[in-house]
Structures are given as C-alpha cells and as structure tokens.
C-alpha cells in the first residue's frame, strides 16, 4: 500500500514550439502515515507532479501506481484512484461553487455515490476536523474570508475520506496564524488517521520541520530525495535551486559561531556552508555587529 512513482517524465505540448519539459526521471514513494514535502522554485514542476498522483495527467514516461493501481490512460479504476488520493489544488477556494457550505463539502462524497446518511456523517467529521462550525452549514461559502474558504475547500476533499492527501502550496497567501493552524491540523490528520501527506511548498523551513522525507525538484528533475537531516549539507548549491534557507538556520549559525549551544543535528560549519558563506565571514560579521551596538 503506497504511491509509487518511478522514472516519471512529462512534457507539455510535445512537438510544438511551446514544448516544455516539466518533469524528468522522478522517482519516490509515499506510504500512508508518511509526510513528504516537495520543494522547488516556481516552475520546477511541483504542480505537474501533483496532477500525476491521482491520474489527472497520465504519465508520458515512467509510471505512477496508487495502492497497486496503475495511473494511465484508459485505466478503468481512475475514479477509484481519485477517491484514494485527495488532491487540494493551489488556491482551492477558487473552486467553490455550491449554494451552501454543506453542499460544497458534500460534493465529493455525493460524486462517489455515498448514501445520504453517510454523506452527512462525513461532512460533519470533515467540517469538525477543519474547525468549521455546524452553524455555518447553511450559509453561502462565498461569504467567508480567504482562509475560511480554503478550509471549506480542504474539508470538501477530506469528506471523500482519502487515504493520501496531496496539497499544492496550501499555505500560499494565508496569514501566519491560519498557516500554523492548517499545518497543525494536517499533522493531526496524519497521526490520528494515518493519512499519507504530500505537501508541496517552496518554504524550506516548513519542509524541514514537518517532513519524514523531502523531495527537492529543480527544473523538473529530482535534485534531492532524503530526510531533512540529509538535506542541509546538500544546500550549499542552493543558489542553483533558488531556495532561500530558513531564517532560523541563519540565526542558529550565528549563535553557534558565538559558542552558544543550539540543539541542532548539524555542526556549525555545515550550517555556514549551507548558508554559502565561509564561517569566518559570519564571525567577522558578528564582531562588526557588536562594534556597531
């Protein structure tokens, strides 16, 4: 039971002047209960990858398998795959259409012909998980704020009770509080229901904090695949992947360079390397800071 992606490749508009290679030779696995973060700069192929995980795009090269079912054109169980893998698109609040919050959240389970009682139970559970009060069920989803709309949209995906949840930049455009809330909620879903989570983000800090594994994409290729601990030493070439290292690392590095003890897995030279500066630079900068103050 897992999502297995092997040697996946995809090209948009092949054979035309608009040809774009979006993915090339991507392999990884996602198991239930696991948390994978896919990071990469804009245009590195993250969204294209997400659409392969539930059969919206059939692989042109390589293969994708969801719990043993191959995602490919003409596969009769594609709808089954789409139920198993819940996909939350970027800015999911733009897909809202129903008259009431209840109808919106029940859209997915009804599409999969759930009996009406079961639909109601699922809507309640999903809404509760996302902190949508029952009192709002009969209101129009368009009357909520951006963050709340997004919660409704995510609840509508959860209501199909997927085994895996793929989220494309779910925190983009949210304020810090809503962002933290959403991440806490995903953590909770993962531990309580054993959901496999694949989170797409360009926020390295979030990825380093949450994931069991990180997949770093660069121009459609797999630049890195491994645990967060293994990622840091690789980041020396971070300019090539155009991702800013988390501020917290810069801070830790400065603390370490002053001889403070910081509970991190890495020694400060690795850290300084990751920040692409030689250690003495940070030392000198600190001295300069001290002189200034």
């Amino acid at each position, binding site marked *: 039971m897992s999502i297995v992606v092997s040697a996946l490749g995809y090209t948009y*508009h092949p054979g035309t*002047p608009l040809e774009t290679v979006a993915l090339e030779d991507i392999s990884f696995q996602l198991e239930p209960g696991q948390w994978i973060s896919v990071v990469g700069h804009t245009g590195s192929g993250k969204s294209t990858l997400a659409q392969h995980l539930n059969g919206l795009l059939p692989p042109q090269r390589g293969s994708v398998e969801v719990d043993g079912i191959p995602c490919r054109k003409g596969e009769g169980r594609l709808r089954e795959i789409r*139920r198993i893998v819940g996909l939350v*698109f970027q800015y999911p609040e*733009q*897909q809202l259409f129903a008259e009431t919050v209840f109808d919106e959240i029940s859209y997915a389970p009804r599409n999969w012909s759930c009996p009406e009682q079961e639909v109601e139970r699922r809507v309640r559970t999903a809404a509760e998980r996302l902190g949508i009060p029952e009192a709002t069920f009969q209101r129009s989803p368009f009357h909520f704020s951006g963050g709340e709309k997004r919660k409704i949209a995510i609840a509508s995906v959860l209501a199909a009770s997927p085994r895996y949840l793929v989220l494309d930049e779910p925190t983009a455009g949210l304020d810090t509080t809503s962002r933290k809330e959403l991440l806490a909620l995903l953590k909770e879903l993962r531990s309580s229901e054993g959901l496999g989570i694949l989170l797409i983000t360009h926020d390295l800090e979030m990825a380093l904090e949450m994931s069991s594994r990180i997949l770093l994409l660069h121009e459609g290729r797999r630049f890195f695949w491994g645990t967060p601990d293994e990622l840091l030493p690789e980041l020396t070439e971070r300019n090539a992947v155009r991702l800013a290292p988390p501020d917290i690392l810069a801070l830790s590095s400065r603390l370490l360079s002053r001889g403070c003890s910081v509970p991190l897995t890495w020694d400060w030279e690795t850290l300084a390397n990751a920040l692409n500066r030689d250690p003495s630079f940070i030392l000198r900068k600190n001295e300069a800071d001290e002189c200034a103050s």
Partner: protein
Amino acid sequence: MRFLNHMTFGQYIPTESLIHRLDPRCKILATTLLLTGIFLADHAVVYILWGVALIVLAGASKLPIRMVLGSARPVLILVLFTGLLHLFFTDGTPLVSVGPLVITREGIRLAAAMSFRLVFLVLFASFLTLTTSPMELADGIESLFSPLVRFGFPAHELAMMMTISLRFIPTLLDETDRIMKAQIARGAMLDQGNFFRRLQSFLPVLIPLFVIVFQRAEDLAVAMESRCYKGGSGRTRMNPLCWKNSDSFALLGVALGIVLAECADRNLSWFVTPLL
C-alpha cells in the same frame, strides 16, 4: 488527461520569421483580401491552390503545419453540421436517396464548397493571430480605423477591447482547465450523460469561472485606472507602426495572387464544372 490542450485558435506563436516582422496593417489587409478571395473561389482546383498557399505561408513563418491546421479543430463540428445541412437540403438533380433524405448533385457541390470556405476562412484568420501578437493586431486595427475617428468611431476603444479579450483567451482556457481538473479530482464526471446532465455537471466549473472572470475584469479596470488610463487621445506608443517596402511588396504579392486565382477561377469553367 489533457482537457483543453488542442486549442491553438487565437494563439500567438512568436517565431522570428519574415511574416512575423511584417507590419500588422499589412497582415490585416492581406488577410481581408485572402478571405475575400476564398469567398470568390468556385473551383476545387482553386481551393487546392489556396491549400498550397497556406502551406507555403506556414513554412515562411516557421510554424509547424500541424499547428496551423490544428487551429481549425474547434470549428470542425460546425463545418460538419453545415456540410450535412447543405448535402441533404439542396434542391436539384437527385443522385442517391436514403429514406426521406435525398442527396443531389448540387447538394454535394454546395456542401463541399461551403466546408472548404469555412475551413479556409478559419485557417487564414487564425494564421493572422498565430503570426501577429494581440498588441500589434490592436495597433493595426486602430491605425486602419483611425480615419473614421472624426465621425465618432471609437477606434481606440475597439482596439483596446480586442487586445484585452485576445490577451485573456489563453488565460481563461488555463483557468478552465485548472477548475475542471480540480472538480474531477473531487469526483466530478464532466463527460457523461446526456446534454442536460452534462450542462448540470458543468455548473461546478462555470460558477467558479464566472467568479474568476469578474474578479479579473475588476482588477484590470482598477489597475488601468490607477495608472491614469483615460482612452486613446494623447497616448503615445512604445513601438509606433512603421510601414516598410517589404510590407508594400507583400500586400502587392497577395493582391496579385488573388487576382490570378480569380482569373483562373473564371476561366477554369471552360474546362471543368465549378463547385458552385
């Protein structure tokens, strides 16, 4: 699944070709002439010549011929429909009859001629948009209509509206594709059932699309106003249009081609019967 990937109609493909570099006014006039020429043609032979001309033009503009031909795809249904109508409902010498339906000699001719005309119309029109950016197109139209401004004709506004609509066609197609995918991911079945079922199951796509369209229109209006857009008079251009000798030659060439084709069309009647 690639839902809306085959849409090339109305798209601009920048390749550095001679045809791309022509003045938009030249291309608009030439296209108008070509469209007239197509409507004047009666013989299958002449339509074949037009086809050859299209292939030559596609080569000259460095566009793959498949892409140029692909732009007729969206109207194929329409072509088929009008073709069938003409095929079955034209009076004349009966050839075959299938039940109540009678196919006449004139019907076949009319159907063929109309289908050819429609297809070539779309092909040449989309060839214009393939080789001319929406900006240039609007500038060209504005410039061509500018003599009418003194009679109150809104040349600039027309051009601006056109630019904006053309500019947003690909964006809207992308948005539609994205929303369709999102609803399919939530289990929507968009391609099943009869017409009304389909229409109904399309509501989850149409409603968000409308919301997005209005939002975009609003944003655009605000953005234009906040940068003091106030219509055409007194606005300067970054790239003023410039009619070159090559434009005169190209236009002349096209005009000559059409005159020749029309002459051939008239005189062919001596040898072969025309479609019309």
